[in-house]
């Protein structure tokens, strides 16, 4: 069998897909939930970076995984809160403000890294903790499936839980209902007394909450250190994945899975003689193509023929 095909169909590939998908999924959930409220959040890149950094620092200095987790989450939520403040209260354009926040995150993380450790590039001197891997007792013994499913970092399982949490919040809580209402028709929400801005603020903060996990996983699971700008565009892929998934839980999950697969594929192609650069660009190119197809199909406008009319006149009776 073709060696490439063999490696794709291997269990290692299956494992890699889930591994790669983890940060994407967290971030994509973040993007989705804020989008549902009508506020597009493109600061996931910066949010993940900040959370990743905070996690490493706090875990190194307190030696407590729990504290690091909480600190990272707080950092992520804070990013969402800042974006919400500048956009909702100070009326900044949400795209520009998010770009500014991404730049801010890029700078402040390296800045603080230097202050605390004297390092500029990465946090190698810090003995930061890692989130543990979990080897699920019975499942790990199942052939094929077991190798794919068991042994992942706890965060990867967390990502699956996150999707479920996203679903629950969105569809099973009053907040989720209000978020969706505000995103679909702010007037309708206002007419029943809902504070549109406050709801959007919550959505942005939840967005930061989920994104934080993605960042924490990157620096404390995927690899065991923080390096400048090492989110490397995952925050942006998350935006694409969320868009592709229609901002819904299942769609977001499938789209993240798709991008995870393409990313993992890129690693496998490297084993062939194809230059790594050409492989690395595949996920990004795929995103553009996917986005175009999605947009083209969403475009409803076309001239309709008279025969297509289902109703004569806005007032009168049906045909």
């Amino acid at each position, binding site marked *: 069998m073709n060696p490439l095909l063999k490696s794709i169909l291997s269990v290692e590939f299956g494992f890699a897909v889930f591994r790669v998908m983890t940060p994407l999924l967290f971030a994509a959930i973040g993007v989705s939930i804020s989008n549902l409220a009508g506020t597009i959040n493109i600061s996931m890149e910066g949010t993940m970076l900040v959370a990743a950094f905070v996690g490493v620092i706090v875990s190194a200095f307190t030696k407590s995984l729990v504290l690091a987790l909480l600190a990272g989450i707080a950092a992520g939520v804070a990013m969402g809160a800042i974006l919400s403040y500048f956009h909702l209260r100070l009326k900044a354009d949400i795209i520009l403000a998010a770009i500014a926040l991404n730049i801010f995150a890029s700078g402040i993380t390296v800045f603080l890294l230097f202050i605390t450790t004297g390092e500029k590039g990465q946090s190698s001197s810090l003995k930061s903790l890692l989130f543990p891997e979990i080897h699920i007792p019975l499942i790990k013994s199942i052939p094929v499936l077991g190798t794919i499913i068991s042994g992942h970092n706890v965060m990867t399982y967390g990502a699956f839980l996150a999707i479920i949490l996203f679903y629950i919040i969105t569809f099973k809580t009053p907040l989720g209902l209000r978020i969706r209402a505000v995103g679909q*028709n702010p*007037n309708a929400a206002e007419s029943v007394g809902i504070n549109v801005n406050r709801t959007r603020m919550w959505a942005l903060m939840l967005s930061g909450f989920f994104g934080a996990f993605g960042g924490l996983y990157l620096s404390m699971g995927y690899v065991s250190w923080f390096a400048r700008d090492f989110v490397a565009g995952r925050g942006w892929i998350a935006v694409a994945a969320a868009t592709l998934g229609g901002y819904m839980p299942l769609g977001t999950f499938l789209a993240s899975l798709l991008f995870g697969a393409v990313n993992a594929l890129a690693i496998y192609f490297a084993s062939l003689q194809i230059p790594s650069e050409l492989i690395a660009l595949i996920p990004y190119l795929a995103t553009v193509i996917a986005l175009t197809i999605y947009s083209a199909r969403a475009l409803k*406008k076309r001239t309709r023929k008279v025969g297509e009319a289902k109703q004569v006149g806005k007032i009168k009776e049906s045909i």
Partner: protein
Amino acid sequence: MDNILEAKNILKVYENGVIANRGVSVSVEENTIHAIVGENGAGKTTLMKIIFGIEQAQEGKIFFKGSRVSIRSPNDAIQLGIGMVHQHLMLAPDLTVAENIVLGNEPRRARIFLDTDRAGEITRQVSEDYGLQAPPDKKIKDLPIGVRQRVEILKALFRNAELLILDEPTSVLTPQETEVLFKTLRNLKNQGKTIIFISHRLNEVKQIADRVTIMRDARVIDTRDAEELTEHDIAHLMVGRDISFERIPASTNLGAPLLSVRNLSYVDDEAILVLNKFSFDVRAGEILGLAGVVGNGQTELVRILAGLLQPSEGEIALRGEALIGLSPRKIREKGLCHIPEDRMEDGVAEETTLEENFILDRYYKQGFSKGIRLLWKNISRHSAELIAKFNILAPSGKTIVSSLSGGNIQKVVVARELSSDPDMIIAAQPTRGIDVGSEEMVHRLLREARDRGRAVFLVSADLDEILKLSTRVIVIYNGEIVAHFQDMSKVRAEDLGPYMLGVQREEAVSGKVPA
């Protein structure tokens, strides 16, 4: 019977100076269905907005169930027991019926979870109590509009509304759905509710209402029992003018048809046939008025003529040349100009200067640019000329448009469109929401264009305007021409009213000029 609602002497003036309600007093008896009728701009929607707390009146008092109340927001109104079903439904399309109904008052389980079961129960309960069927678990976007409206009503009932205001509810319903709605309303009335019903479907008003209030020109004309009035009576009261109105002298420069529209049909994105075999001519030296209530297809017609929308079928010819398929620029170059219905959306770029707004259609033409270079000196001079000639109240051509009043902004649009002396002028609602002085000027300019032998197509919901200016009038109703008045000398508003309101129609009529 007691009055559930009394409005006394309401005065409402909007920021742009338009008086929407003037000395308006209405009493609504408990347990009745009370219709409020009037043309566009008569003031009925404003009155309802005041009652529901969306707007505040400058003067006047409101009494609910006998006590004086102050309604400063929709929440206040809801608390009192007033519910409103807006013309544009306030529903979240991707949420279910139950979700929309409980939104804002969600039933909870363990404080943090949404009790979806209970929401469904509530929906079913309210449905049963009032006999209004609506499937709790279906999404709004999947439901026909009649059911969506029912959901809006249920929303209000869930919040214990005793007075229900419905704003043009049947404008979006089929006749069958309207029947169902009326059954519902009678039912609600039997259960002790009071209903205010805004409409200009006079046959429906006759069918369902107990009392009718007629509004015209920001005032209440009369309130009577529905039994006492025929549809014609109502139409008369709605559009009748006591004073003989103004009319410009007849056209002396009548020529051949300049614009010919044949069998124009348009199906929109919702698969509704908005325009149905529309045919008419506009001659040089005349003003053809298109009278009709807003929402009968005029907006789409004008956009198609300007090249901003593609029709499904039909032909448009200007001086014999086909216009369909041409770009908006080409159409303008052929001599057609367009005063748009929505001046802020289409007519101006409000963030920039008057100068930049004036040159929109001519920046690339000789005199304003040389090759690719803009000749700003000429542009500034031209702007100053236009400001002077059209009496625009602005410090200079470098003033930002958004700082001008509505009337002056419209003057900017009119100045630009008319200053190129186009052969064909389309004026859509040209004096909507502007002050009297500006309105006078616009009318004068249209008349002068006509006298010079230009063709004017005037689309307006303002009957006074139509009667004052038009050489001929066609009436649009539901996307079709239902009347053609060729001799305007004896035509009064009362004659047009019934056609505009769908009470009457001529058969096989078009706006074509006989050969």
